């Protein structure tokens, strides 16, 4: 599973990264977590607001921090799908 946090480095973006990192560890999933800070690359996902979360190429959320429940449900669903 490939997880990306998009954001140029504002407070909320760092928070989202930590949140995702923690959630992955807690759930014991195997995933590569990357932080995308280059604006050209961020724009490639078509998001208008940061932070944004991308799981396996799909934008899950943008412009807000998801709840822990939302996050773990996305992660587990994506992990089960392969």
């Amino acid at each position, binding site marked *: 599973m490939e997880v990306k946090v998009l954001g140029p*480095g504002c407070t909320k973006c760092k928070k989202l990264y930590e949140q995702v990192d923690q959630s992955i560890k807690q759930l014991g999933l195997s995933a590569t977590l990357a932080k995308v800070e280059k604006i050209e690359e961020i724009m490639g996902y*078509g998001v208008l607001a940061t932070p944004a979360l991308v799981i396996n190429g799909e934008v899950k959320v943008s412009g807000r921090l998801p709840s822990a429940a939302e996050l773990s449900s996305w992660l587990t669903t994506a992990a089960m799908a392969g």
Partner: protein
Amino acid sequence: MTTTPECACSCGSSPSGKSDKPKFHEVLGSLAAVAAWWLVYRNLETFAKWFTYRVLRMGQGSHLGAAVEFLVYEAPKVLLLLTLVVFGVGIVRSFFTPERTRKLLAGRRESVGNVLAALLGTVTPFCSCSAVPLFIGFVTTGVPLGVTFSFLISAPMVNEVALVLLFGLFGWKVAALYLGTGLAIAMIAGWTIGRLHLEGWVEDWVYKVNTGAAGGAGEAPTTWRDRIRYGRDAVKDIVGKVWPYVVAGIVVGAGIHGYVPENFMASIMGKSAWWSVPVAVLLGVPMYSNAAGIIPIVQALLGKGAALGTVLAFMMAVIGLSLPEAIILRKVLKLKLIAVFFGVVGFGILVVGYLFNLVM
């Protein structure tokens, strides 16, 4: 230079619920909250009098009594109003995602587009750290440059927290003035920038960016249950962050109310000093504060006899034009365009300042 300035904004966090149907106890809870709000709000004035003069046994008509009564009445009143409005705005914002706003603005003619963009700027969730992706996302999908600017100007400058505080502390007239003039500046400044045809002063790479055609938005709240949570989280986020500023402002206000002689500031920031408006704007630009932080200053200045137009200009310059935002936008705009942007908006603020000093 890759550091991004911190931004004093709140992109809300909102959990989305599993089931759509609100539970019975949730409905009951909401109704009880509304009833409690109304009861407390209605009885605040009586309570403040009773508390000040009966419980604390302060002398009627004394300076200290007047100050305490002001504080005990105003602080909860403004916080109650703030909670209600932030909640309401939170719910409204759950309807206006940036993606939806872009769709509404894409391909719009100017003028109509500028008006619409300024209005949408007030209700679309926006934070200055997202200014760059938003700017690129707008201009590469057919939103005219001037219309994009109308949005970018109105989004930070017309702020619901400032609106509530102005309403609560100075009445509806001042609040309406702020809302009306803020929108007018955003519309006219954006339209002017559009007329100047400055597309060439946008960094060249911006128009070449390949923005994902699908337009990833993720999941936006769709059910009423989600929207109410969105509103509640906005309250937690925004009111939780700004209440100390609000209380501090009211404490200052209470002090002024009871003690400081009126017309203290009149000679420096009064109507007669013509240079006070440009000085207020020049002072305001490098200062960076959120709306809640600036209101205590506004209150102190107005209370000491500063002219309304001058103070309004100062406030708009602080929250509408900020250096950190300029640094963030430098990634996508050439310096010349940033200068035009600040120049046009600054000029608009000046006009507003003089206008109000003239008519009020």
